[in-house]
């Protein structure tokens, strides 16, 4: 039970990283300025690096000699367990940065907690990734503050992004039997604890940005169980095209 729970847990982490990286990669060559184009694709590459380590770990736990490429490129949509938040379209720059901010504010405390995990490889990946994630959060926070407290238009676009994305944020803290088994064994932190830390970060940054937390508490989920939004199929057709069209190709 615990092996399959751990596989599922690590797969969720890696799928979040991979799909968000794919989304950020769409900005390559389209960033609003050269500096930000490079920043977004840097973050994307960090996330792909994390995904590779996490997929390797998941494959080792599973023990069916799958590779990270097979996990990344050769599964069907309902086998991906990423949250709906990361698959949402880039939209405008505010939408991309708010999506990133909500994700980073979740990932940082999670990695910090996982550094204490008795699952050694997972703790090692968390320790390596935490530095990258700390920078990602700094970068996205700085932008949220500047856009929110910037011009009338940047404020309005940022608030619109928050109002749209808020419904996807609760799923970050999704828990099921897998999580409960691992939590009981002391291997992973509780999501309630993560949510409290996330909320503290979000509240303080949005306050500084003069942006408001939506009152509407309507929530979406499904991604953790493999039920995705209509955007996921398009992402996967881009992501998997090479491996599907030319099986086992390398470059």
């Amino acid at each position, binding site marked *: 039970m615990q092996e399959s729970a751990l596989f599922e847990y690590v797969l969720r982490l890696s799928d979040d990283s991979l799909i968000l990286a794919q989304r950020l990669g769409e900005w390559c060559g389209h960033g609003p*300025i*050269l*500096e930000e184009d*490079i*920043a977004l694709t*840097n973050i994307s590459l960090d996330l792909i690096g994390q995904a590779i380590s996490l997929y390797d770990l998941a494959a080792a736990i599973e023990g069916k000699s799958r590779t990270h490429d097979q996990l990344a490129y050769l599964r069907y949509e309902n086998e991906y367990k990423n949250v709906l938040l990361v698959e949402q379209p880039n939209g405008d720059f505010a939408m991309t940065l708010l999506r990133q901010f909500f994700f980073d504010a979740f990932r940082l405390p999670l990695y910090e907690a996982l550094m204490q995990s008795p699952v050694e490889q997972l703790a090692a990946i968390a320790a390596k990734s935490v530095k990258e994630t700390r920078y990602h959060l*700094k970068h996205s926070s*700085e932008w949220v503050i*500047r856009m929110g407290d910037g011009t009338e238009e940047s404020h309005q676009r940022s608030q619109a992004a928050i109002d749209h994305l808020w419904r996807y944020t609760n799923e970050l803290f999704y828990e099921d039997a897998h999580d409960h088994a691992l939590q009981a064994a002391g291997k992973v932190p509780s999501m309630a604890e993560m949510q409290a830390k996330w909320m503290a970060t979000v509240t303080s940054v949005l306050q500084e940005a003069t942006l408001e937390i939506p009152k509407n508490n309507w929530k979406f989920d499904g991604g953790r169980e493999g039920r995705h939004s209509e955007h996921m199929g398009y992402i996967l057709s881009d992501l998997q095209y090479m491996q599907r069209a030319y099986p086992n190709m390398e470059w």
Partner: protein
Amino acid sequence: MSTNEWPLWEVFIRSKQGLNHKHVGSLRAPDATLALENARDVYTRRSEGISIWVVESVHIHATDIDDAASFFEPSDSKIYRHPTFYEVPDGVKHM
């Protein structure tokens, strides 16, 4: 489209071995914090540095190319200012 461009910043990076910061290029950013972040992303992706300075380009005062003759040429003819006329004794290292 807005014609208000962000200010230009000059970027100086100290490499792992180097003691001094060296000018590596320039970039645009709305303020100093983001200038440092942009410099990190644009100029240190291949672990080039351990410290970054950014200076808004308007604060740099440069010599005028037209003054080059009076500024720099006079030193060309004073080779005695270079310590090249001394025999270095065998025991002296690191010269």
